[in-house]
Each structure stands twice: as structure tokens, then as C-alpha cells.
């Protein structure tokens, strides 16, 4: 998707520090201060995790940390709610399959 560079009410996009994050092994750029979910959606990612039983995609849903549909593995820790967690330089983000906790592996079932 795209970032909103100019807005009739909010004006021009504020200059923010660009930082690098790693999503499934790929480097992407995010802005300091934004949530992981926002950075991912801005970079075209929508399927954040796959369900345990049926391996179905889930993504950003409630945006306020309540529904847990946007959970991903962040720096090796599964079940991180990406809509309320802000990006940090060098953060490693992975799609979560199931509970993301099988002996530390994140395997497709």
C-alpha cells in the first residue's frame, strides 16, 4: 500500500527518521515511532500470521491490541501484537505460523 505523503487536513508528512527492519529475512525501511503493523502495511505486507489448525492468513484487524490477529514473531518472541508495538532499528520480524513456539521453530504444520 502507500504512505500518505500529503493530506488536506494533516498537511505534509513529517520528516521522521528512517530505520531498517528485517521482515522474513528481507530488509525494509520503516519510520521511527510507527507501529510494526503500519510499517508492514506500508510495505505491502498484509498476511501477518497463519492459524494453527487450518493455516489460514490473519492480519491487522482491531488496531488497538485487543484481537491479537496481527501477532507475529518479533526478535524471536512469538505472539507480539504488531499494532501496538513500535518498530526499532534492526528489529527482526517473522510471519507466525500457529503459535510460533514449536521447540523454538516456526514451522508450518
Amino acid at each position, binding site marked *: 500500500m502507500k*504512505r500518505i505523503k500529503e493530506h*488536506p487536513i494533516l498537511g505534509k508528512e513529517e520528516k521522521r527518521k528512517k530505520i531498517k527492519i528485517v521482515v522474513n529475512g528481507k530488509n525494509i525501511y520503516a519510520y521511527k515511532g510507527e507501529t510494526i503493523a*503500519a510499517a508492514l502495511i*506500508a510495505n505491502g505486507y498484509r498476511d501477518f500470521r497463519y492459524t494453527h489448525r487450518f493455516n489460514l492468513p490473519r492480519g491487522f484487524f*482491531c488496531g488497538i491490541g485487543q484481537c491479537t490477529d496481527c501477532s507475529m514473531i518479533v526478535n524471536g518472541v512469538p505472539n507480539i501484537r504488531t*499494532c501496538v508495538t513500535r518498530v526499532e532499528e534492526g528489529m527482526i520480524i517473522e510471519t507466525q505460523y500457529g503459535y510460533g513456539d514449536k521447540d523454538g521453530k516456526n514451522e508450518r504444520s
Partner: protein
Amino acid sequence: MERMREVELLVIGAGPAGLGAAIEASRYGVKVLLVDDKDKPGGQLFKQIHKFFGSKEHLAGTRGFDIGLHLLKEADSQGVEISLQTKVLGTMDKDVISLLVKEREMKLLKAKRIVLATGGIEKALSFPGWNLPGVMSAGAAQTLINIERVLPGERILMVGSGNVGLIISYQLLQAGADVVGIVEAGSSITGYLVHAGKVMRAGVPIYTSHTIKEARGGKSVEEVVITALDRRWNPIKGIEKTFSADTVCISVGLNPNGQLASLAGCEFKFFPELGGFLPLHDDNMESTKKGIYIAGDLSGIEEANSALDEGRLAGISVAASLGYIDSNRFAKLKEDYWDRLNKLRGGPFGHKRSIAKKKILLSSQQKEMRYQEIDCIELEENTKLKNYKSIPSLKEFQEFPGYPSLSRIKKGAVACIECIQEIPCDPCVAACPFKAININPYITDLPYLDENKCKGCGVCIASCPGQAIFVLNYNYSSEKAAISFPYEYLPYPKIGGKAVGVNRKGEPVAEVKIVKVDKRANFDKTAVITIACDKKYINQIRSIERIKDDA
């Protein structure tokens, strides 16, 4: 061991209600701790980029985020202590409250009084594909576009035509997305017609008696199917439409967020008019649990102004109960707040809510609901709220007191107020330098245009949060008329350029010429565009097609 901290008042939730309570209690000397689980205060206010309704004391006509800044300043000047990223886990034995700070540190606290301002939770809607990535709550999309400045998608279907659905559809357009339609299961538009008017002029169709049937796609939404509904809300076979869309926004109402109130042991009752189960409260906003007060969406889903006033009322009640305000003063202040709240709940839109609120007060006092019967009659009488499936006809608009007469239009520039529902809003009155607009005696009354006093200056256009005021100048030149209207999209049209004039439904009417783009600062980001067109379109053209490319 460290001694347990004790505060006079703990306010939970830093949205408008919580801020209101904290500010007022502090003003009278109460030591307040305001906590919120998010990392910024303001609740949902900072993603509200539209101009708010209400009256002057509610800062009507001001954009939501500016009201948020104003409240934070007020809280700061009153010395309110705010603790963010602080979750309240519940109350434990002997009124000890447990807090979890930054997901790691547990803190225990005692409070003499508590105000719960925990807000509302958006409802979800289940349909095949509802859990595909790309389907999200409307509030989530609003956070993305207005806080994160990221578009959730390019082609969006909105489910629900209440004010939230209409306002967020409009904001999605402002952010640069396309809204392919708004579906409403009910037989008429449920939000304010002025909000519907904005999106319809922008060409967004509203499908009443329709709902979403399915969202389809592989890894995320690729297309959506909507279906027509009969009177009993059953799908009518064969009347389906399929759209290519990448996002579905759900705005089908909110429920009061009652988890903490429930844990605290407050008594709940079901009030569908106010969003469902909610804690009972008396006219001091005190719940059935002594010392625990509630305010805002928790005490019934309404809007930010009512939340703020309820919060302020809870704040002074706490201050009075702790002896910071004497009883006479308190009685006077309380009456003022109830007066303000009743005004906000006036008119046909607020009527059901206002009766439900009356019932809450009565049931919290364990009194018989003796008003019920009278209220039902009154409700029918008062619900002159006409149901609209779409934007009404010109003829209908002309029957209202804001539409100038034909003879006045022919005399030259005049305001044309297309505000035909009794909603609590009056910034146009104060905006007019000639006192040509009146709303009397109640804030929910319709605006009345004194067409002889009106000079057609157009200052009222940008003041109207509903964007329902236009200026018609029949005598712009010998052949052309000029029409001025509010415009909040980028890019702005260029003076001297051509555009497609559209009617109230967004349908193209004729090619028009842009003659003025007024972006003066006190219009607060609402540009006022003036176009010239054939005189015969004076009662038809109300906007222009949005300009797609900045070419």
C-alpha cells in the same frame, strides 16, 4: 517494603471522559492519578480530524485532534499526573488496585475514589471471509490513515452507515483511497444526513437494505460480494453485486467496555440504545458501587462531547464527595452539566438515548419506571426523524428554513443552508458577521436563514462541521451563476481551470469553471471553492469531481 501509594482519585482511561474527570477534580483540589494503557493520552481524539459538532462551550467547529491538544493542556495546567502504558488489572482485596506498568512492573495502589472511563469496543461482524487480512474495524483503518499515515488499501467497502462509517469513509477519501460503497443493512441511512452528503457528493454510493455477503481472496481481500436484504433482513436471492476491493471496514457500532466495572462489582443492565450492557449510575455518575464513578462510552455509547461533559460531571462529583466543593456550589455546577448534556441529547437523534439515560438514573435509584409509558408516547411524537435512503430531493430541501427563496436567490449572493435534521450543532450562528443565521431556542433546532440580512459573504461555509452550507450567486455575470462550497481534498483545483460540477449525489451535471479557491487560515483547512456555471444549475451543482492526478 515500600508503603503502598494512596491517591484521592484514580481515573482509568485518558480519553475525553477520563481527561474531563481528571481536569475538573484537579481544578477543585483533588489529587488525581490518570492512567491509560496506551503510550499516548487522548483516547481516540487524535485520530478525529474532522470538525466537531456541538456548541461553543464544546468547542464546536474545532477539529477533534485540536480539542485533544486543548484538553491535554488543560490537564497539564491543572497538574494532573498521567501514567501511560499502565494497565489496570483489577481491584484486589480491601480496595487495592493492581497496575501493570509497561508490561513488566506490577504496582499496587489505593484510591479513595475511582472514575472508570474505559470507553467502548468496536463490534465485529461475522460473514464468510471476515477474518481475511484486509477486513478490519473502521477504527483500525482510521488509526492507520490519520495517525500512522498509511493507507489500509486502495479500494474500500464500508459496512455500516452510522456516523462512524460515514465519517471514516470521508476520511479514507481524504487520505486518497477509493470507497467503492457503503452498505447499510437497515432501510435508511443511520448517521447524520450531512455526513452522508459529504461522501455522496464525492460519488460514494450508499446501499441501504444491503449487507456484505462475503469477502474473497487468497492471502488477503480481493473482492467482496454484497447482497440486498428484505424487510426482515434476510438476503434476497439473486440481488447481489460483486466489487473488486482490497479492504473491508466494519463499522456496526460499539459496546461499552465494561470489564473493569464488572470486576469491581458494578451492577449492569442492558440498554440497546446505548450499546448494550452497561453499569448503572446515578445523576452524579456514581455507579452502584460506592466511590466508583463512570463516564463516557462506558456509561453508554455516544460521542466525544457527551463523554467529556459526563467526565467533567464525574470529576466535580468526586470533588464534592471529598469535601472540596460545598453542596450549594456543587448543585449549581451539576445542574449546568446536566443542562449541557440534555442539550446534546436533544432532537430526534438523541431522543432514544436521552430516555435510556433517564431509565438508568431511575433504575440506579431502584425506582419504578413510571415514566415508561409516557416516554413511549413522547418518543413517537418526538421522533419526527425522517428516514432517508439517500439524499432528499431539491424540493424537500427547499421546504426547510435554511434554503433561500427563489426571489432572494435571484437578487444575488446568498447562503443556502442544507441542514435539515435536528442535530446538536451551531457554529454557523457565531460565524455569521451579519447575524443572519439563527438556531433557537435549542441547539438541536434547525438553522433559520434571515435572507434579508444575509450578504452572501460565505464565512459560514467553512464553519459548518456538516459541510452543508453553500453560497449561491445568481448574478455572477450576465450568463453565469457562481456557487461556493467547502472542499477538503488534495489536490485543490486550479483557478481558471475546468472541472466537472456534480450534484448532491455526486452525479456529473455540467462542466464548470473554477473562479476562486479560498484557503484563508481561519477556515482551518477547509477550502472554499467557487465555480461558475450556467444559471440553470444554481440549485443543482453542489461540488466538483475530485481531481485524481496532480497533473
